[in-house]
């Protein structure tokens, strides 16, 4: 495992800033973890140890919180994040077929990152675009009314 310093000085000082901001507020763990994930793109082990030490909580508690919530990832993520919606409206309008097609096209399982590090494919329940079902979000852009054969075209934009 890399040493804390190899995470980048600037990133670590950003993390320290976040810790300083939330340290004295009630319930600091989740906001600090959210900031850390924003800074590093995921939660590196060294950053987790650092947070636990600075906030004076056992690492086990910090990991307990981080593993509970779907938002947190312990693996580096791809350049683009695809959220494939499997909400009810998407499900009845063929959302599973869209996910299957993306899995086949990108050769990854849901939750994983492609070998070239371009995409992380996530399965989510409801992105609130039900009227555009079946829908996906890539980074911050939503694509609606998809069909399996349109998947390639959409992915091709990235």
């Amino acid at each position, binding site marked *: 495992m890399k040493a804390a310093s190899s995470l980048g000085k600037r990133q670590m000082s950003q993390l320290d800033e976040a810790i300083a901001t939330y340290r004295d507020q*009630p*319930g*600091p*763990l*989740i*906001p600090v*973890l*959210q900031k850390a994930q924003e800074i590093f793109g995921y939660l590196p082990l060294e950053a987790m140890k650092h947070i636990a030490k600075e906030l004076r909580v056992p690492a086990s508690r910090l990991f*307990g*919180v981080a593993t*509970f*919530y*779907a*938002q*947190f990832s312990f693996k580096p993520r791809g350049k683009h994040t695809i959220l494939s919606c*499997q*909400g*009810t*409206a*998407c*499900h*009845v*309008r*063929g959302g599973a*077929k869209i996910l*299957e*097609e993306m899995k*086949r096209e990108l050769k990854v399982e849901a939750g994983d990152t492609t070998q070239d590090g371009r995409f992380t494919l996530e399965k*989510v*329940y*409801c*992105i*609130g*675009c*039900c*009227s*555009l*079902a079946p*829908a996906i979000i890539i980074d*911050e*852009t*939503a*694509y*609606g009314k998809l*069909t*399996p*054969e349109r*998947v390639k075209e959409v992915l091709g934009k990235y």
Partner: protein
Amino acid sequence: MTVADLEKIRKRTRTFDEVKAGQVHVVVGMNTCGIASGARETLQSFRDGMKRRGISGKVFQTGCIGMCFEEPLVDIIQPGRPRVTYRHVDADKVERILEEHVEAGGLVGEWALAQFPNGASPLEGVPLYRELPYNSKQQKIVLRKCGFIDPESIDQYIATDGYFALAKALSQMTPEQVIEEVLGSGLRGRGGAGFPTGLKWRATRQAPGSPKYIVCNADEGDPGAFMDRSVLEGDPHSVLEGMLIAGYAIGAQEAYIYVRAEYPVAVRRLQHAIAQAKDYGLIGERILGTDFSFDIKIKMGAGAFVCGEETALLASIEGKRGMPRPRPPFPAQSGLWGKPTNINNVETYSNVPAIVFNGASWYSSFGTENSKGTKVFCITGKVKNSGLIEVPMGIKLREVIFDIGGGILQDKAFKAVQTGGPSGGVLPESLLELPVDYQELAKAGSIMGSGGVVVMDETTCMADVARYFLTFTQSESCGKCTPCREGLQRMYQILDRICKGQGHEGDVEELEELARSIKDASLCGLGQTAPNPVLTVLRYFREEVEAHISQRRCPAGVCPALVRYEIDPQKCKACGICRKKCPAEAIEGAPKVIHRIIQEKCVKCGTCYEVCPTKFSAVYKV
């Protein structure tokens, strides 16, 4: 800021409809659905086009007006002319609207959806907004400003009587009177459980301990539901005002809004609204010159469905794993950091200003005996008009689906409607006359829930739907109670094998047995209600599930293991469409050579079935 200052802002602020002579107001729907349909580009094109053409006026953004299926929606307002709503306004339609409608004073009839006469004589051939089938049965209280104000302008909120309910409460009512008013309105919690809001407020007020907290549950996790997102995006100040009134009534000075991180637009608008309200002194110390002080903070959720449960939500705000705890003590007695806490959801708070402003008897004049007022629903799935609606309680499901929703996509046959998300149930056609009311829905085995209404047609497999909800609930179970953690997985496994054609006799009975135990022995609402979708499927669609087991057949032709696609050589015209569209390259054939599906390669995605031209209809399911 005093009440007199509020009055000044109300007088001086221009609403969308108040346009200066010679100017135009363009209003673009900029909620998530609109943005996903290209509204941001449309808005920019209007700005650019007006500048280039030298048209004087303003381009506004607004929240969700409800007709997601017509997005991007644009309203054009000019003095002395009816306000016209245009539908599907992509950026490339902007020039023609500017030229023909705005400059030439005409109308682009084929894109016009509706009009508001605004005192002018109505245009011919364009329906009135109020008379559109989608709108005529709606009654908007919560959504009354969504689509009619700029959600990022506190002045426009004030101009439409915003914060005057707070002013009324603070200057003319005691906290007890506010609680009596809310109690008298009959308002019940809109998050799903339907507990009377006034009773909750009273319990929190009377509970010993201080400080007291106000919490807003904006962790809208039900798949198929986006009511709260739409309110936060379209009218965030109504939620803040409701929370302020609750704070005054209960005697709290601090509040949290727990909002999903998956709603970036809503979070941004909320942050903006809080900053504006602070700037005006409507959040802060000695509000409107009284002794009442109040602060509102945002807490971002981190992606856990169970955090919609109130005790789990409180644990999450405290920075812990979001696991529910037994009640009592209820949050009203011992909530956030062990202090008395009032939790309501977005829609509940958003109702409060209207109730205080117009009075309890006005509010309770809407709805049924036991369910007063209105309810916001998201109507989605296999329905023509998919969007956001607000209807009086007691409206029939049939009216919601067929009159407002416009019926089933492609005029297929209706099969079921799902209300209440993963905690609710599926209801068959025989129950379409059911009035939407807390008691009536519960009697039928479903619940009102937060407001997702997902419509299913004849091509939906109900065994697959039951399995779908379990996929969701078993992965979202927090794991604290064994019956929920293990039982839902067992139920999922049984339904999974049924859908794969490997079910055996006794499976249905075992599902029912497990469902009963999970309902009885789980601590929180998630476990207690998670079996509902399965139980209602077994109650109303038992034969369909049994066909999967006894005949190894999926009557709706959905479950891949039980379906095979074939091409009828008599009907195939070798057009090649299916071969080109097949994602698995599982179709062989050539021009003028009849096509054939290679079953070993087929992934059963159904693309060939969907793309085969209707005039041939050569692909069939067996």
